[in-house]
């Protein structure tokens, strides 16, 4: 099998396994539907290209998530909207003015969650998205490069933030 055929095979397996997660990841970085579609495609191309270099030093999942988050981070850094980003701590201080009743709607809750994710700085956003995908702290640490202790702290903050935003009606 040639290197390209091997690369194609790895990509197809990765796309089948992580495709939906990559789409959700892109939504966490890009709110505009057209640009989000472009970002998803850019991520797929980046994953395909990178798999030519895959040497098994980490799991395919770690590799794919790293490439996807790095591509998405490059995307938001290029868009230069960093002035509007906040840290998890700062997000916890923001009262988003929503009411409890409205948050019972699934669509509304998802919309609100998306807005919260998109307001975060890239490094906090990475942890939030990986947490929502259900990865454990060790996997998150391997993907992001943060120490396990830092990951655990951030997850604790994320849970507190989500709880405050969704169960307390945005009261800070």
């Amino acid at each position: 099998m040639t290197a390209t055929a091997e690369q194609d095979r790895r990509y197809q397996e990765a796309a089948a396994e992580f495709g939906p997660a990559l789409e959700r990841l892109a939504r966490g970085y890009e709110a505009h539907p057209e640009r989000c579609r472009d970002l998803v495609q850019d991520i797929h191309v980046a994953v395909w290209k990178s798999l030519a270099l895959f040497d098994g030093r980490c799991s395919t999942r770690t590799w794919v998530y790293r490439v996807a988050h790095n591509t998405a981070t490059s995307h938001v850094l290029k868009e230069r909207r960093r002035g509007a980003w906040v840290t998890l701590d700062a997000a916890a201080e923001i009262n988003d003015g929503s009411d409890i009743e409205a948050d019972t709607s699934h669509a509304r809750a998802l919309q609100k969650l998306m807005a919260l994710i998109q307001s975060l700085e890239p490094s906090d956003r990475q942890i939030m998205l990986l947490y929502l995908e259900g990865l454990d702290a060790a996997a998150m640490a391997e993907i992001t490069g943060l120490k396990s202790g830092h990951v655990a702290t951030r997850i604790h903050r994320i849970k507190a933030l989500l709880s405050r935003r969704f169960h307390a009606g945005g009261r800070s």
Partner: protein
Amino acid sequence: MSEAPDDMTNPDFQNLWQSQPKEMTVMSLDQVHTRARAFKSQIQWRNRLEHAASALVVVVFSGYAIFLDPPLMRLGSILIVAATLLVSLILVVRGRAAPVSDGAEDCLDFHRRALIRQRNLLSSAWLWYVMPFVPGFVLFMIPAIQNSAGDKGVTVWIYLGIALVFFGGVIAVNLLGARGLQKEIDRLEG
């Protein structure tokens, strides 16, 4: 993901997130190959556009270098052409050095590398983006000042003011951007 999370699991939010409707169709392998090629030609097109803007400056100031009368203006024009070519070359070289992700590098390292690269570009813009144009600009302006009617001292100050506002403004904006990036880098490392 179906991997069993540890005790940090919050099924409400994770289910909410993972149950999003899937909207986009999976890209076929052919589509991925095509987009990879298109991405390359998109970069080539952007480079051509930048080169076209540089070419315009080169053509205009080459014309000045040939047809303008005062020798200092000619020399100034030649230096501006040289500065334009130099800046274009630097942009091409630095564009090639843009960080590309592979899965061997974790997100923190990649993010730091991207920010440091941007910061360095901005903080050194005075050197590689502004300074090359200064000698040509000065030589180009001297005959204009010499030939101006009225008080030459006032004219010098006017030209000096214009240069300071223009070049100083470019430098200040870039330095401010670099400072903002440094804060982000510090936060990442903190």
